[in-house]
């Protein structure tokens, strides 16, 4: 029985395991999708997300109960809901509120991913600010610095070093998460592979190719991550 099933499989997949022509011809559109959408989406969302994250982290450690409360609710809501659902709410859901809320796929994705990075990275930044010894704040104060001067000149540079490894991980996750944008019609790397697969039925090969491309991007990023960490080594209190 098992043998018969196996035979059938082999017969049905008589085609060569890798169709090299398809491989080379599919690379172009996928890389184009990567360059035109995946990478810009990642960079824009990460940059906006970091700004949101720093502000949220500062709100959370601030003495204002209201600011801290708002920041908390925001982080909790984003972390407690699936990214895919957030994308659908912004792209498919918001238009129900009126024409002003109809957004193109790319900006919709940017908003969703920025909010996402903002929430997750704010926790990283908050923890890294709190990891700087209290004595560093005090040393800033005793030479007459204000809260703001101490924060920006003394605390954040040290917190940055602490937060680089987890933030790089967030960045690498973001690269992969942008594939979800294919679900709201952003023609990025993965959507290109889906489009080609829909024509040729070579699902396995095309999705593997997409996976390979993501892997290469992330591999390069992890090398850059290592370099940055080495350079920032002296920023840690020892």
């Amino acid at each position: 029985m098992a043998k018969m099933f196996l035979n059938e499989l082999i017969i049905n997949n008589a085609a060569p395991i890798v169709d090299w022509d398809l491989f080379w011809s599919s690379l172009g559109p996928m890389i184009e999708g990567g360059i035109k959408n995946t990478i810009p989406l990642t960079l824009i969302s990460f940059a906006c997300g970091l700004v949101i994250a720093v502000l949220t982290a500062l709100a959370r450690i601030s003495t204002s109960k209201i600011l801290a409360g708002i920041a908390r609710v925001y982080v909790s809501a984003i972390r407690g809901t699936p990214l895919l659902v957030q994308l659908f709410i912004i792209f498919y859901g918001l238009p129900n509120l009126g024409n002003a809320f109809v957004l193109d796929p790319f900006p919709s994705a940017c908003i969703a991913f920025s909010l996402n990075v903002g929430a997750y990275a704010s926790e990283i930044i908050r923890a890294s600010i709190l990891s700087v010894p209290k004595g560093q704040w005090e040393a800033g104060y005793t030479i007459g610095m204000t809260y703001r001067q101490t924060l920006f000149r003394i605390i954040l540079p040290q917190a940055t070093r602490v937060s680089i490894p987890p933030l790089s991980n967030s960045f690498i996750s973001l690269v992969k998460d942008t594939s979800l944008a294919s679900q709201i019609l952003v023609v990025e790397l993965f959507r290109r592979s889906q489009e080609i697969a829909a024509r040729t039925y070579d699902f396995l090969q095309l999705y593997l190719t997409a996976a390979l491309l993501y892997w290469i991007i992330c591999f390069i990023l992890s090398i850059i991550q290592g370099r940055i960490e080495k350079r920032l080594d002296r920023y840690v209190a020892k």
Partner: protein
Amino acid sequence: MLISVKNLHKSFGDLDVLRGVDLEIPKGNVVAIIGPSGSGKTTFLRCLNALEMPNKGTFSFSDGFELDFARSPKKEEILKLRRKSGMVFQSYNLFPHKTALENVMEGPVIVQRKKKEEVRVKAEELLKKVGLAEKMHLYPHQLSGGQQQRVGIARALAIEPELMLFDEPTSALDPELVGEVLSVMRELAKEGQTMAVVTHELKFAEDVADHVMFIDGGVIVEQGPPEEILKSPKEARTKQFLDRVLNPS
């Protein structure tokens, strides 16, 4: 009087750590603060530059500047107070991402907004004075404890404080490194720098201090010239403490 402290109170929750401390420091004097562990020495020093906010008490400076902690002072007043004093910490607390020179320059450049070139010249002089002319471009983690503490002293001096505060500046150091820090402090005292020093180095207190204050349980038990307090204390608690420090076993 450079500064007079009156009726200083500080509590942490239910714990009354300082219960009415009065102290006057004449300009150019060195006050040594001694007392058993947990008696409130660090807290007292930290109150002097509002790292801890006193619950009650007043500070008055010779230039007429006054702070009354009973009515919570404004931010600007706190900043003004802090800019009058420099603090040297037991654990140095140097900025690890800045070189020795940058550590020293930070206050004058960022807080006092002086010109960088001028500050650099002065900072280099200060580092020379604490014996670190060769080390000024090194980062804190490249320096020994004694060297780090001397950078700490130079950093505090850089803002030209009227009053220098030292909280057990040598107690985190290996014994062979204590001398180099104390000798810098002796030098400062000789130059007429007003200082308040929490210390366990009784020899140093005896040699350098003009005034010794023994604090226990959040009150000043006894104060006076060093020969009086350290050699012939009147209070039983002072005697007991000195006995324990001089004959540990």
